[in-house]
């Protein structure tokens, strides 16, 4: 029987990678991802994980080696953060275009400059369009479960796409908390061995990564895009698998006290946890607030999201990244575009940008944002995106 143990979230992530019987780990250290790969190196060094650990010389090579490794047929994991993820940028698109199911844990951190090692989502938001399945974990348990889920989804022949699990740097990665680590036999039952659809095999030579001219590039991108869209059904199917195997239920979009809520916070990642605590206190003070937490970011679960917010008169989309010069921050823009597509125009959308570069987001801050947003809506102020908590 799986035990609930105290363990640092990074180590728990590495343990999940071990339980997945990963063949190759290729990674370059960067704060706050380091504990994940250090622990994996240790597990390999101790023979607890029968894998090849490639201590590459850069993140660019980390992802390049992952691509090579999956193309060779090996179950492959990497992890990175911020500048490292940015250095991988070019490779991330190629991994998905080649349909190679790499799994990556991203310890979310701010992008330089100024140099900042602390948490926000600017690293992954700069990689929105890489064509990967992308999930956000809210706590350590989710990190473990979503890591196993990531392999399951990525390697599913109906998907065959790389998958990233996002976890807030420090706020999750460096916290020791209570986590249930699954038993090996349950993981084996959930996650069978990797059966790649095509590999580099001298017995059946094929060419991977060819030149695609104007006469085929559009079709290639269409095929890849449809594959990611179709991944939604597989993601939910394997969430259900998690529930059956491990007893923990997950949905692409989670709600909290949203049924009768008039104003909903929209969060991703660990922010949702503090936000729920804030909502509890706001409810006690008579405010009809709720939370909608987006767990699946790509493909975006449009239907689930609409279902979750349709009863609200106002939503507060909390972004942890800026899209300079754009009409909204990344998550805000996504949601406004979705509401427009669905001809929903009776929801006032506030889009505060909060928690940049490790700036702590407290319950009080959520209450302040709420008060401001409600005031804006009441006064008929045009909907806007605003960086909050800036010292003037």
């Amino acid at each position, binding site marked *: 029987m799986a035990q609930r143990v105290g363990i640092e979230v990074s180590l728990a992530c590495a343990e999940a990678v071990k339980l997945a019987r990963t063949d190759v780990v290729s990674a370059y250290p960067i704060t706050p991802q380091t504990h994940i790969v250090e622990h994996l190196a240790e597990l390999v060094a101790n023979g607890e994980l029968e894998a090849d650990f490639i201590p590459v010389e850069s993140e660019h090579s980390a992802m390049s080696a992952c691509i090579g490794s999956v193309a060779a047929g090996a179950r492959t994991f990497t992890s990175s953060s911020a500048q490292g993820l940015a250095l991988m940028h070019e490779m991330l698109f190629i991994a998905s275009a080649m349909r190679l199911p790499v799994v990556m844990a991203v310890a979310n951190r701010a992008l330089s400059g100024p140099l900042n090692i602390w948490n926000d989502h600017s690293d992954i938001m700069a990689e929105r369009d890489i064509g990967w399945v992308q999930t956000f974990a809210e706590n350590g348990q989710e990190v473990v479960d979503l890591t196993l889920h990531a392999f399951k989804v990525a390697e599913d022949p109906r998907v065959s796409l790389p998958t990233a699990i996002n976890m807030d740097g420090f706020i999750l990665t460096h916290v020791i908390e209570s986590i249930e680590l699954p038993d090996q036999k349950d993981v084996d039952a959930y996650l069978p061995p990797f059966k790649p659809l*095509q590999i580099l095999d001298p017995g059946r030579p*094929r060419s991977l990564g060819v030149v695609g001219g104007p006469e*085929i590039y*559009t*079709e290639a991108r269409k*095929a890849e895009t449809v594959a990611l869209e179709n991944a939604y059904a597989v993601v939910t199917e394997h969430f259900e698998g998690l529930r059956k195997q491990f007893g923990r239920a997950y949905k692409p979009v989670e709600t909290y006290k949203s049924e009768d809520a008039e104003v909903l916070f929209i969060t991703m990642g660990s922010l949702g946890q503090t936000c729920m605590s804030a909502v509890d206190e706001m409810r006690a003070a008579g405010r009809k607030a709720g939370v909608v937490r987006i767990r699946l970011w790509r493909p975006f679960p449009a239907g689930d999201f609409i279902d979750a917010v349709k009863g609200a008169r106002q939503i507060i989309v909390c972004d942890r990244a800026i899209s300079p010069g754009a009409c909204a921050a990344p998550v805000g823009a996504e949601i406004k575009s979705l509401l427009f597509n669905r001809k929903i125009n009776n929801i006032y959308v506030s889009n505060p940008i909060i928690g940049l570069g490790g700036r702590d987001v407290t319950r009080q801050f959520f209450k302040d944002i709420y008060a401001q947003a409600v005031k804006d809506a009441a006064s008929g102020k045009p909907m806007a995106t605003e960086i909050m908590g800036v010292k003037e």
Partner: protein
Amino acid sequence: MAKEGLHSWEKLPLGCSVPEAGSAAAYNTGDWRSGRFPFTQRESCIKCGLCYIMCPDICYHPDPQAEGYYTWDSFYCKGCGICIHECPKKAIVWKDEKEEEEYGSACGD
């Protein structure tokens, strides 16, 4: 409408791969050649095989009919002339394409 693609996106091999090895063999590079082609005078040939190994376009193959000699393939030859330059016996010479109706004779039988 914009120009159409080569084929349906639904027929694209996974990740735009090419599952069939060596399929470029169907591609004619012989029409890159202009006006002349290399002709082996077998009476001078010493069967050294340098034409075979030095040809960047893989146009020479062992002659199944005459051991030690090599046949030339008009379908691929781009007419670079390396075989002519590298032949130690000057056994390969340029010939005007107009002179030869049949490339089969280019292997000098």
